[in-house]
């Protein structure tokens, strides 16, 4: 689900903007970076703290 919510948010954003994803799904730490690579966006940073995962994404030219 975090990947889907990320995709839905990114669709409404412009290249150069930053999206911060916050979730607890452990799969997201790999799935969201993979989704970014596939769709032309850049992961700025991933921070994990007590089960919470924060992923900062820079929107690329992608779609």
């Amino acid at each position, binding site marked *: *689900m975090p*990947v*889907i919510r990320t*995709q839905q948010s990114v669709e409404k954003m412009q290249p150069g903007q930053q999206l911060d994803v916050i979730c607890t799904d*452990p799969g997201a730490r*790999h799935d969201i970076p993979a989704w970014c690579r596939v769709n032309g966006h850049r992961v700025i940073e991933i921070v994990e703290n007590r089960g919470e995962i924060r992923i900062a994404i820079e929107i690329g030219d992608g*779609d």
Partner: protein
Amino acid sequence: MTETSQRKAVALVSGGLDSMLAVKLILEQGIHVEGINFFTGFCVEGHTHAIRKRDQKKGPKRNNALWVAEQLGIRLHIVEVVEEYKDVVLNPRHGYGANMNPCLDCKGFMVKKAHEWMLERGFDFIITGEVMGQRPKSQRKETLPVVAEESGAGDKLLRPLCAKLLAPTHPEREGWVDRERLLDFSGRSRKPQMALAARFGFDDYAQPAGGCCFLTDSQYAVKLADLWQARGEREYDLDDIMLLKVGRHLRPRANFKLIIGREEGENNFLEGYRSQFIHLRTLSHRGPLVLVDGKPGADDLTLAARLAARFSQGRDAEKVSVEIQQPGLEPQQLEVSPLSASDIPKGWYL
């Protein structure tokens, strides 16, 4: 579109080997391909494998659809269809397979959605990794045309792996795709696909014939049927179907069910649902998080506490202290004797 414009295909990408090969075949013919993957809520992929600690220790569990897209250098669009998919699950025109799997309706639904996407985005045709004769419901010689027709995609639906066994499609007739370079795979053997993968240099891929949908799983189907029976209606939401994938499910009485975390990863996952359910945890001994689904009375909660104690490290203790938290109320603490294994009828297990 001018005649020299590159043609564009949208590919149903499950993450399995067949869709990976189908995409590769079409990419090699100079077609621009983008992948589409549908999230129904019943997917085996991804999060359930990422939940359990033992699976996390094996290394990161990849999302195979994303991985395939990355290997092939194509974009992947993941489309959430949980709500729309309910009609497929609840009212399949073509019925169910061995369990709760409405495979033929499912494939028709996904191709229909891909067709809608194709039209919205100005793409030219759809490809899938279907192979005639490979799956017993949706990939028979008689049912492949049903999918094409009922989805609305018609002859805009191309199956590169078995195209030579089917009537030529629109992209073939138009010369966008060379039919001679398509294939005639059929049957249940995966050897042709694995040989093709080797030819393409793919030495890593999702295991062929792996189940991709919980609806094909007999235990899951039992739990889903139980959910409907307990609620008196065939309905569900996303949380329902996610929770059915996790934990040990016991129904001691018709009016309530317990979802018991089996290990740390599952307990962490269930924590996310804590505020929505009555939940129990053992205080005197280490134990699972237990969610209570239904309408338990006071007696039921005592039974639930004894079951929670049973599945804790206090299972052999004389007394176990259990906290019961009902939403909106102060926590309640009980001292209970754990049920013994022989006190738990097999029929309680779902």
